[in-house]
């Protein structure tokens, strides 16, 4: 540990690289008109369930990622009866103040940088980064593979923003091919989608592999730090049904060829079942404790510690790659984590110096993460006031 004085200085430098100065919500879910100036460190929203605490985080998350925090339709983000919603954030990025905003209509969203339509997503995302931690994440280890894929992909996207467009392109090609499989379309028409699927699919594989290379060791180390489990945590990602190539070392072109081959080979089976059975959408993130698969063997507490370790690794990794800490969003901090692991998390947040947004029903859960400069907010029926 560095001396306290040195650390303070470092925190100050980090704060310069990315800081959220102000946040405004208009007709975002139940937040009709809310403006707030967050703390440089912890901003904590306290309120009963269903009052709009999570909406504060959801809006900020959407602003920073253009993706909803929880799966759902865009229309659900807009207040009932309003034509559209808008979230605006004033950020300090690399020493310059920028205003980024997003308009949300049921039909789509539009991103703005300093009042002008963002020319590209690269321009929009440049310098803004966020990691969210929600109660849903806690179910990831013992839940189904789709939950783990989404969990993995959020981290991939945080690290490589271009992944957003790439995964959308893939999803579109996949949906088209699946539709044709269900409709028993002629093979000649079906195969027209394979090349695109293989090209974009190989790209997604490479992105996920790059993230895993950076993250898996960090996550294993973080898991040890959280403690209480002797067996080491292993996070691993291997595409299913991949043959003839070594995933760890294959080039993107080789993976594309391999995927094209598998698509072709599995076509009879896919036709029978009506969906595409190979590709990034059919993979799983393997998590294990020592010899055992965590999905079957991890206890409730262990599986939560695994998720926590992953998030801590992600934060550290983003800091290493971006040169600054991401914004941290923690939704509904509660008794979900046992007291010891909660203490670890809150202590980690306080020590990291990151700008953090927490929601809770009871301030006792988050006291440890707060400090003299924390901003306490009370959320009630979509109204946000100082606590």
């Amino acid at each position, binding site marked *: 540990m560095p001396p306290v004085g040195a650390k303070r200085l470092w925190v100050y430098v980090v704060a310069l690289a990315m800081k959220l100065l102000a946040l405004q919500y208009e007709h975002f879910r139940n937040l009709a008109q809310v403006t707030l100036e967050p703390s440089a460190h912890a901003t904590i929203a306290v309120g009963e369930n269903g009052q709009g605490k999570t909406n504060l985080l959801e809006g900020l998350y959407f602003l920073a990622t253009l993706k909803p925090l929880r799966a759902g339709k865009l229309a659900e983000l807009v207040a009932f009866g309003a034509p559209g919603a808008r979230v605006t954030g004033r950020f300090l990025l690399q020493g310059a103040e920028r205003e980024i905003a997003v308009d949300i209509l049921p039909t789509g969203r539009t991103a703005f940088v300093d009042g002008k339509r963002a020319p590209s997503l690269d321009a929009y995302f440049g310098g803004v980064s966020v990691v969210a931690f929600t109660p849903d994440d806690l179910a990831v280890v013992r839940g189904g593979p789709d939950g783990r894929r989404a969990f993995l992909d959020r981290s991939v996207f945080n690290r490589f923003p271009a992944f957003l467009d790439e995964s959308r392109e893939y999803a579109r090609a996949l949906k088209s*091919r699946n539709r044709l499989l269900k*409709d028993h379309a*002629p093979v000649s028409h079906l195969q027209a989608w394979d090349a695109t699927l293989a090209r974009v699919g190989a790209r997604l594989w490479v992105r996920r592999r790059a993230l895993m290379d950076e993250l898996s060791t960090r996550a294993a180390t973080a898991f040890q730090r959280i403690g209480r489990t002797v067996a080491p945590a292993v996070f691993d990602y291997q595409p299913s049904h991949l043959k003839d190539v070594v995933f760890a070392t294959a080039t993107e072109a080789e993976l594309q060829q391999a995927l094209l081959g598998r698509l072709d080979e599995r076509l009879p089976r896919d036709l029978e079942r009506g969906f595409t059975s190979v590709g990034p959408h059919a993979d799983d993130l393997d998590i294990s404790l020592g010899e055992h698969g965590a999905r079957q063997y991890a206890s409730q507490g262990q599986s939560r510690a695994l998720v926590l370790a992953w998030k801590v690794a992600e934060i550290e990794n983003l800091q290493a790659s971006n040169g600054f800490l991401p914004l941290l969003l923690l939704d509904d901090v509660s008794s979900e984590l046992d007291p010891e692991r909660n203490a670890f998390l809150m202590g980690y947040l306080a020590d990291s110096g990151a700008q953090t947004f927490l929601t809770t029903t009871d301030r006792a859960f988050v006291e440890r993460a707060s400090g003299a400069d924390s901003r306490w907010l009370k959320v009630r029926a979509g109204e946000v006031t100082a606590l």
Partner: protein
Amino acid sequence: MTPDAINRLVAQLAKLPGIGEKTAQRLAFYVLRSPPEYARGLAAALTEVVDKVKLCNQCFSLHDGPEGTVCSFCSDSRRDDRLVCVVEGIADELAIERTREFKGRYHVLHGVLSPLEGVGPDQLRIKELLVRLQGESPIEEIIVATNPDVEGEATALYLTRLLKPIGLKVSRLAQGIPMGGDLEFADQATLARALAARRDL
């Protein structure tokens, strides 16, 4: 109360893409205030468009000649019969024509493969393209100029698989950095494709 005739005009105008109720009303009043010749000219132009403009039954471009004749792209003897450029729609055809670089013939598909919107090969003018290739066809090369999106690519691939076995040369428009564009402003996907499709100097 506004007269029914105006209401009918507003309702018709409001069906146009990009025109809302308010704009439709503004347009209707503009027509009303203009000299009557304007409205008659507009009406005649509208009628003429639907009565006269048909699709060429060879390349499916727009055509306003008498029944049984082909369009000016197909009949122009200065154009190269060996080259056919396949496009998604009329707008793309016009865009390529504006370059004045292409002197071959065209074939308009009127759409792209899109299973999510229920568009398959039978909904496009693909059969008609094959008909053009039958018999003593002078066509040697097909340039597929569909858009570089998921549907455009699938359509290009579908055509390639269909046409290559006939012994035709099939090519695809190149993708890369726009002219006058700055490398530093190019998006990642475009740059990556441009790198992949680099050529020798």
